[in-house]
């Protein structure tokens, strides 16, 4: 049955909204397939504004993986800003995809990628504008399946009632497995209806409605158990084991509108085993799987030629840790010397070697700024979070940077970490002054800058800090104010030290949404009904609204906002995500948590090395998931003359 474009109805609304170009599609790299020749149709959604959602790697990869399949169609949809939302409601225009402006409600699947919990209210906007009932239980055979993935989906419980299916981990193979199951079910005449399909999908993904959650009188979870005999007790994450076999994106979507990242990005490896205790991404994406230098080289060559971007980002959780990063940097810099194509390494550890890499990659261009993330202000704090960086490391790194011509160094920190005191945060001021003093000496000039950037820490599921009490926003804000005062106190550093910070209040709501259970769904719905939109944008976020809605929605429960956030959990408590398996051994996580806060006798947190270079410390992921570390070196090199666009294949 043909599906009509909503564009004729949308077009007259566009002159009345801000940046209408974001709603029209037509980007180089986008694909419009014939509706009727597809038997499984996905609408892929990044639930934030186009400018943020378009560059998202996850969506771009899945878009290509799906569209490359015969009989499968994938289009994209993003959250519309409030100006267009109001006009769409007024004029009866439903949520649409950008490729062919088809109504999202006509697709088989609405696939939503959650990079952050703060996008949950945007999911409700998308569902509502699409005409899809908000609650999974209210949907019928004619409605799309609402499937979520992304890092936030490792605890989907706060939005579990709004989702039909949740995929944990890498999406490449998962979307194809789901596609096959949907096609088979359709071809078999849709046996069992919507529940029949969900039952089939429960073998490869998490279907929240097949699990019942019961609570103790004190509000803690008693049990999470399947309510159907064929549904597994736990659901495991997906892990792609050969990144070279999945060289996506090959044909990046090149936006016409301005977006937050204007570059071609290649993920040079996935996973991280540095073991930073606060880092959810590092815990849930294990083990490390490198992409080979030759695949990276051909992806860069193809991607630049196909997109016309003049910047290449070499992405990962800690890019300098690739076993052949030196060769990658030198060879790519050679290949692109004198071409006006810029190379960047967005995520860098505090390590002098990173400066050498940055020097290589910036051969063509200006050395403006470098960013490092010591995360903790004092050495004690950095041991607690297992970020093994000494003050000498940091000073050596930044002096190397200033000496080789970098003018500005940005340092990232967190506030409100477990066991933190005022002194740990104030230590940042001292550190910044030492950085400037050492830098002025090394550079032989005074016009260097250091910017301190700091935000509140939010404990995340599947990390050693998942049991921690979140620091209350009043305490975070007081420490941030004190740090600001300390940074300004010494006039001799004047404008050399910059200070940027994020208020504590949004972090508390992020904490509620991160570690919440299904009862938090009512809070999200109440906040959305009250007008919450784009909560990840400070100018749209209202703490007062969330506080009020949490109070109202949880009024009949023995729990409240503080219970979900600033309360420390103990070992025996059933956590809302315990039935969702990222492979991490719960006892290992608990021991790592204990090692960080209450180490035996020493008073100093115990450190964990990286298993790429030291023996396995048994976090549990590899045996549980049947995976293994995949690192080089391969010994290959990139040669400019050989670095020709070649289409990779699996």
């Amino acid at each position: 049955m043909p599906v009509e474009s909503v564009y004729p109805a949308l077009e007259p609304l566009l002159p009345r909204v801000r940046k209408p170009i974001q709603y029209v599609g037509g980007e180089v790299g986008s694909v419009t397939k014939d509706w009727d020749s597809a038997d499984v149709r996905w609408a892929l959604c990044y639930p934030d504004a186009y400018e943020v959602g378009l560059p998202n790697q996850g969506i771009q990869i899945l878009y290509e993986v799906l569209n490359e399949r015969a009989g499968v169609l994938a289009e994209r949809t993003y959250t519309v800003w409030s100006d267009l939302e109001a006009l769409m409601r007024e004029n009866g225009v439903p949520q649409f995809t950008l490729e062919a402006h088809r109504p999202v409600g006509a697709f088989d699947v609405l696939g939503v990628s959650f990079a952050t919990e703060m996008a949950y209210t945007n999911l409700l906007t998308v569902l509502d504008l699409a005409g899809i009932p908000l609650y999974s239980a209210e949907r019928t055979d004619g409605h799309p399946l609402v499937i979520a993935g992304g890092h936030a989906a490792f605890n989907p419980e706060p939005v579990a009632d709004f989702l039909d299916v949740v995929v944990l981990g890498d999406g490449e193979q998962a979307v194809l497995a789901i596609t096959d199951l949907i096609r088979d079910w359709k071809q078999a005449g849709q046996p069992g209806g919507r529940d029949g399909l969900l039952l089939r999908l429960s073998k490869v993904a998490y279907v929240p409605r097949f699990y019942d959650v019961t609570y103790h009188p004190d509000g803690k979870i008693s049990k999470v158990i399947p309510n159907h005999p064929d549904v597994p007790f736990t659901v495991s994450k997906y892990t792609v084991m050969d990144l070279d076999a999945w060289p996506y994106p090959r044909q990046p979507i090149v936006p016409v509108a301005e977006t937050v990242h204007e570059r071609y990005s290649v993920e040079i490896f996935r996973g991280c085993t540095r073991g930073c205790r606060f880092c959810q991404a590092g815990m849930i994406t294990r083990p490390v799987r490198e992409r080979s230098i030759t695949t990276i080289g051909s992806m860069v060559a193809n991607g630049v030629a196909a997109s016309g971007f003049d910047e290449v980002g070499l992405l990962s959780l800690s890019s300098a840790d690739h076993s052949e990063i030196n060769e990658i940097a030198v060879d790519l810099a050679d290949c692109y010397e004198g071409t006006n194509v810029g190379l960047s390494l967005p995520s860098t550890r505090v390590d002098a070697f990173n400066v050498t890499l940055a020097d290589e990659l910036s051969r063509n261009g200006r050395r403006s700024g470098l960013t490092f993330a010591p995360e903790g202000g004092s050495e004690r704090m950095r041991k607690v979070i297992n970020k093994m960086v000494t003050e000498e490391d940091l000073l050596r790194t930044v002096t190397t940077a200033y000496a080789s011509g970098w003018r500005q160094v940005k340092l990232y920190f967190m506030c409100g970490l477990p066991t933190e005191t005022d002194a740990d945060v104030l230590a940042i001021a001292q550190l910044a002054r030492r950085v400037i003093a050492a830098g002025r000496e090394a550079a032989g000039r005074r016009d260097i800058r250091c910017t301190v950037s700091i935000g509140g820490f939010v404990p995340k599921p599947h990390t050693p800090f998942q049991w921690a009490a979140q620091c209350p926003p009043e305490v975070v804000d007081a420490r941030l104010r004190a740090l600001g005062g300390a940074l300004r106190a010494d006039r001799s550093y004047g404008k050399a030290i910059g200070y940027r910070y994020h208020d504590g209040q949004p972090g508390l709501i992020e904490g509620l949404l991160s570690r919440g259970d299904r009862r938090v769904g009512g809070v999200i719905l109440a906040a959305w009904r009250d007008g919450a939109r784009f909560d990840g944008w400070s100018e749209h976020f209202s703490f007062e609204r969330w506080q009020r809605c949490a109070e109202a929605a949880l009024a009949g429960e023995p729990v409240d906002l503080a219970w979900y956030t600033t309360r420390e959990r103990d070992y025996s408590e059933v956590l809302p995500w315990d039935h969702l398996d990222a492979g991490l051994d719960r006892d290992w996580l608990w021991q790592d948590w204990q090692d960080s806060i209450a180490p035996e006798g020493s008073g100093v947190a115990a450190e964990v090395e990286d298993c790429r270079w030291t023996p396995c410390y048994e976090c549990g992921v590899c045996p549980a998931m049947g995976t293994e570390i995949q690192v080089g070196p391969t010994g290959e090199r990139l040669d400019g003359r050989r670095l020709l666009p070649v289409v990779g294949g699996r």
Partner: protein
Amino acid sequence: MAEPAPTRPAVQHLVVRYAKRGKMRFASHRDVARAFERGVRRAGLPIAYSAGFTPHPKISYAGGAPTCVASEAEYLSLALTVRQDETQVCQRLDAALPDGIDVIEVTEGAGIDGKPSAGHHPGAAPSGGFGHLEASQWRVVLPGVGPAAAQRAVAGFLALGEAPVERLTDKGVRRLDARAAVVEMNVVEMNVVEMGSTTADPDDGQHAVVTGYEDCAILRMVVLHTAPAVRPEDVLTALREQAGIVPSSPPMTTRLEQGPRARLAGEALLTGEKGS
């Protein structure tokens, strides 16, 4: 210490006439500029770069049609470091751009129609190498406005000595005299447009999209490129305020031509006559 990349000198300047059509009418000047920078790289053209630590591709733009306004006559010039065949550049660049940002013609040099960029009109907007683009011919489709009402409004507007209007910009309220910039304006007769379907227009051969409106007037106007610029929307503001012309949904505006004032004024008259 990094050195800026050495720059190669430009040996050829090409003038590109392009269109902003269909969905791409919603692109802003900056969106179009980004698309061209990427398009030039995708097409593999030997574009010259400015010197310095942050080199920019040498592309200069004649004043672009506003966001939401379509155009059949936008201009830019490219500086190339290796001589290229104009027809080849036209094809390669067009293939490398999003559909709707369409390259129409590529010619050598800074002028169009073989005319040098001399004869800068007094009061014309500053424009690097595009001084001969003194005026634009616009077509405005006004949904829900009857031709007779439009005729009366146009006659009334042309009889005015001045038509002060205000436009809200990012920098605040801007006051303009809409009448002073309008050289000609007329209502195109209805038989030019076939109602109820996407129609071909005799001028540009395509993209005059008028669908499903029972009643709609089509204006043609020739507007000088003054500083500050008077846009078709400013003229429509005057028509609304002076004659109560209020379209039932947003007007569809297309720039049909840019060029010397004398030539455009003649053409507008011709097409107006052709329509009646």
